[in-house]
């Protein structure tokens, strides 16, 4: 189902992108996600999983390069177009959209450092890939750390007494990686490359980190078993282990001198995208509830004729529409300035995922008992949305971090 776009300036290209993404979400992502949701975690990455066919189709249409500049063969979308397309994909499946986004992460980050070797060895092969076999992951979460690795400029972030679980030590022309990333690394069971965020200078605490592109075929890399979880079962995740993994130093994109600030720039991007995903899943739940309410009869009339249901649907619709405007504005602003205002991205993540959860919960309420069964997609959407309130940082912790930023920065002048 399409929606009224309040932006009067949508170009023909914007509309075509949106339609193409929606078609793909409807015809490929929804069925794939539905099937993977019913598999065990092991089966979902097994040879008979529909995941591989999905990836091949997505790569054939270049959806894996949404975040990559077109000068390398990426889609080269504007920030506004990124929001437009990602909402549609998330409408089809949040889990598979996350899988596509993290697949691009090593190349996306590498595109900021266009050294010839990195272009030739990392970015171009990824953009040229059409079978889904070259894919990345974002390895930041650690077993002993939850959201606290996502709090640049928060006091604890620079505390050297808080040890990291994964470190990189310089050794000549190499970095030697040791340690572990937690089971929540999306795409880790099959990724060929990791955008690894790890500690280099322990005296600086988490702030002494670095971003290293790690080819995961290197000796010393191993992976955990795919994780069984409540929601987003169509986004396979597992641990990554590093045992004296030697990575060429040229693959270190950012070192401790700029890690904290670079992380803030990265998070300004990723947290607002969580908001965009929330719009997509919230809209999916709203549309399911609206359609169901038109056909289901109770007390002798369609649900849609009951005033309480009408009010519920209005509130669901309002949350989706408000968050769409907020996420687009924050994403476009932060992608047009090198000093992003992360607190605005955090509004999108914290409130977007909360509202998406509430919309999905209300959709189940409108479905009644049938909404609790696996016969209808709202049950899956509800579980997926619940995961989003913790994914990419717990909303509670991120709200504290955002409060800290507002106290420090309000009113921002640029």
């Amino acid at each position, binding site marked *: 189902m399409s929606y009224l776009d309040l932006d009067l300036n949508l170009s023909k290209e914007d509309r075509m992108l949106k339609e193409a993404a929606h078609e793909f979400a409807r015809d490929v992502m929804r069925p794939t996600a539905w099937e993977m949701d019913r598999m065990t975690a092991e089966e979902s990455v097994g040879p008979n999983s529909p995941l591989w066919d999905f990836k091949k189709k997505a790569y054939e249409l270049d959806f894996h390069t949404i975040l990559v500049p077109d*000068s390398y063969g990426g889609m080269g979308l504007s920030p506004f177009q990124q929001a437009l397309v990602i909402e549609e994909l998330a409408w089809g499946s949040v889990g598979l959209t996350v899988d596509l986004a993290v697949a691009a992460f090593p190349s996306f980050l590498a595109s900021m450092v266009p050294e010839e070797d990195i272009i030739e060895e990392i970015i171009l092969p990824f953009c040229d890939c059409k079978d889904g076999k070259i894919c990345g992951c974002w390895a930041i979460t650690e077993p002993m750390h939850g959201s606290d690795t996502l709090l640049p400029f928060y006091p604890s972030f620079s505390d050297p007494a808080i040890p990291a679980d994964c470190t990189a030590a310089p050794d000549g022309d190499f970095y030697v990686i040791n340690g572990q990333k937690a089971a929540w690394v999306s795409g880790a069971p099959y990724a060929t490359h990791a955008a690894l965020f790890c500690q280099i200078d322990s005296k600086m605490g988490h702030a002494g980190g670095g971003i290293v592109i790690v080819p995961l075929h290197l000796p010393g890399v191993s992976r955990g078993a795919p994780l069984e979880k409540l929601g987003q079962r169509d986004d396979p995740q597992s641990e990554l282990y590093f045992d004296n993994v030697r990575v060429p130093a040229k693959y270190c994109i950012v070192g401790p001198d*700029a890690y904290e600030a*670079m992380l803030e*720039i990265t998070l300004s991007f990723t947290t607002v995208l969580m908001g965009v995903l929330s719009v997509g899943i919230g809209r999916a739940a709203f549309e399911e509830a609206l359609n169901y309410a038109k056909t289901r009869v109770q007390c002798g009339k369609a649900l849609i004729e009951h005033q309480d249901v009408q009010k519920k649907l209005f509130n669901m619709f309002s949350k989706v529409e408000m968050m769409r405007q907020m996420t687009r504005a924050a994403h476009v602003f932060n992608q047009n300035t090198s*000093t992003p205002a992360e607190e605005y991205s955090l509004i999108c993540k914290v409130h977007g995922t909360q509202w998406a959860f509430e919309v999905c919960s209300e959709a189940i309420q409108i479905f009644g008992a049938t909404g609790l069964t696996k016969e209808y997609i709202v049950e899956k959407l509800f579980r997926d949305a619940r995961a989003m309130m913790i994914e990419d940082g717990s909303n509670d912790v991120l709200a504290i971090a955002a409060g800290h930023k507002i106290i420090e920065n309000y009113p921002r002048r640029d």
Partner: protein
Amino acid sequence: MSVFKDANHMYTILNDVWTHAINETDFGPKLKEYEIDYKFVIKEPNGYLYVSHDEVITGDKANRDAVITMELSGDTVHAFWLKKIKLPVALATRKIKSKGPIPKVLKILPFLKPVYELYPVYCEKHGLAID
């Protein structure tokens, strides 16, 4: 004190480098294709530089609207073109402040290679140390 003697010294070198880049390399046509023009707002020495696919302007006349505006010091200009500082590090540490679409900033980066190669040559020509 800046590595550049004064604004005129800086303008001479940057004007030569950018004029060569837009006229003799792929950089100019790519600026046109991607619809990008730049304004550089430089501190110490204070000055403006405007670069589009077909012209390079220095001084107050260069203080005009552009798709991408970058604010940075003269020393950062010098360090950047000598590859002593990477763009993400410069952006992250606020040594360069950028206004304009970040995707456009990133997509033009691979075509800056000739500028990196030319810059030390012109520094030498105009007596600017590159160590």
